[in-house]
């Protein structure tokens, strides 16, 4: 079964935030003081590549464009509110991927929307 494009995007964003965290010298130092081994940081890049290869190119391109503007290109929707910009009724703009997934974007801020219920 093909992985949902939205879930891949969410995974990608989590990986990117992990990568960012691992580039923060102070955070890494904190981790090491707590006793965690961080010996294979280069593996994050591999994982990011694996995920991006499975993404629809048009969608991925759009993700990158949004990422230029915001730290987090994705935002949760709760009770009809985009938690990226806090404007209500955010849905409207949609993109259908080559995998037939429908990805929704916030009409106000343009972030990719997902729901956690």
């Amino acid at each position: 079964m093909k992985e949902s494009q939205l879930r891949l995007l969410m995974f990608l964003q989590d990986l990117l935030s992990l990568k960012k965290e691992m580039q923060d010298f102070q955070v890494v130092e904190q981790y090491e003081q707590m006793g965690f081994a961080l010996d294979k940081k280069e593996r994050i890049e591999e994982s990011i590549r694996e995920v991006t290869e499975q993404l629809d190119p048009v969608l991925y391109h759009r993700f990158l464009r949004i990422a230029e503007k915001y730290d987090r290109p994705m935002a949760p929707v709760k009770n009809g509110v985009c938690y990226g910009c806090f404007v209500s009724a955010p849905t409207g703009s949609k993109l259908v991927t080559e995998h037939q997934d429908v990805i929704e974007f916030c009409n106000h801020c343009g972030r990719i929307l997902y729901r956690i219920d």
Partner: protein
Amino acid sequence: MELKELFNNTNVNLNLKATDKDAVLLELINLLKLDEKAKDMLFKMLKKRENLGSTGIGKGFAIPHCRSLVVDKLNVAFGRHCEGLDFKSIDGKPANFFFLIVAPPIEISNYYLPVLGKVAQFCKIQDIGAKLKEIKEIPEFLKLLEDIPN
């Protein structure tokens, strides 16, 4: 945020049944109230984190942790595996005690690293492993968290 405020009857399992690392992660994730898709995504993310270096910090303790979009607040769980199993820990010894910590990418309160630090500190308390092995019921575990010095 104190550790005792984070744990309760529903996110502690003193009898993990898993026989390998992946199964432990899944059992811990099951203690969180998430839907199946979220659980699956969280599992993948925790695995990716383990791939960077084991979160088995030795002396029988492991603290699998990550940030993930699938949660909207800090989530924790504790599991005990009486026999212990291989978690690729730093000291090469089996792990018996597992703290799972998952936080959203951004939290207003920023509990993630402080909580992680408190858990790591808890794991370093002298003889804490022996005490954790002896407890029989969840309230005893909660009491142990309450007793730790800040």
